[in-house]
């Protein structure tokens, strides 16, 4: 097993233990739910990093087409979408008990929801083209559009907004007020790395499985020929 997989295990167990036992400042409204910072926020960090990997592989595919690069882009996008959906679900639950509603027309929330819809369309697009090369090329181009739409929706528009319930409006980084607490930073950064690595790990296994499947099909075709 590769070294970063051991790192993933250590970081995730550290996050779960220190996430609950570590010191957090006493904040009104949030109370103990601020510990969600170690679980909800890393979903979005992980999603962004893995979707970036996906779009990089899509661009590489367009420059130099191969099924390998298409698989890398596709599996990364799927993991990114999974993390994004988990982020939306956990955020909605958190909002229910701190803001008093499951959903509100907040610029950050809507931006995240639109991003997930754009990426859902990526999967729809892939599913609707049967020709492999055409599917790979179309979805690679669409992936570039999806990522370029996601970044303003998630990171630029919420910062431009005048009012938002979600941390991160008015030009501030999303967690500046927690960032001041060095105790939380000690858990938050390892949590981000740990959850992101878990996403990378899942993607890696999914890709390797797809490569093996591809190879078996190739062998079968050779045997038939």
């Amino acid at each position, binding site marked *: *097993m590769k070294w970063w997989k051991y790192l993933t295990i250590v970081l995730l167990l550290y996050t779960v233990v220190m996430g*609950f036992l570590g010191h957090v400042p006493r904040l009104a409204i949030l109370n*103990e739910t601020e510990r969600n910072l170690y679980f909800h926020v890393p979903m979005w960090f992980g999603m962004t990093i893995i979707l970036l990997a996906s779009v990089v592989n899509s661009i590489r595919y367009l420059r130099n087409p191969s099924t390998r690069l298409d698989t890398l882009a596709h599996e990364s996008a799927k993991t990114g979408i999974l993390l994004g959906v988990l982020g939306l679900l956990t955020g909605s639950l958190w909002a229910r008990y701190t803001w008093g509603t499951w959903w509100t027309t907040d610029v950050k929330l809507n931006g995240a929801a639109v991003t997930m819809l754009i990426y859902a369309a990526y999967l729809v697009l892939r599913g609707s083209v049967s020709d492999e090369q055409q599917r790979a090329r179309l979805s690679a181009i669409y992936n570039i559009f999806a990522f370029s739409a996601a970044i303003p929706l998630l990171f630029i528009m919420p910062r431009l907004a005048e009012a938002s319930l979600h941390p991160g409006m008015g030009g501030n980084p999303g967690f500046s007020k927690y960032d001041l607490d060095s105790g939380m930073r000690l858990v938050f950064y390892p949590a981000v790395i740990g959850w992101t690595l878990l996403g990378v790990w899942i993607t890696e296994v999914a890709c390797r499985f797809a490569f*093996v499947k591809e190879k078996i099909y190739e062998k079968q075709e050779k045997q038939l020929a």
Partner: protein
Amino acid sequence: MKSKKNNWLSRAVALLLPLLLLASAAFAQAPAATEPEMADALRANGKIYVVVLVLVIIVTGLLVYLIRLDGKVSRLEREVNS
């Protein structure tokens, strides 16, 4: 007469003083009472460790599943490549 009046006054003070002290003590505690509520009891009685252990078990279980899946794919890779 005078001493009686003094007596009454000192009694009133003696009665009010503890009350005043109590009030000031309560006032001093007021900011502490308005501090955001945290799960202090959960920590004090140690039940937080139950939550931590449950999560450690779940995360370990999921990781073991992923490690085994990883191993199965590795074995497949070896089989196909040999």
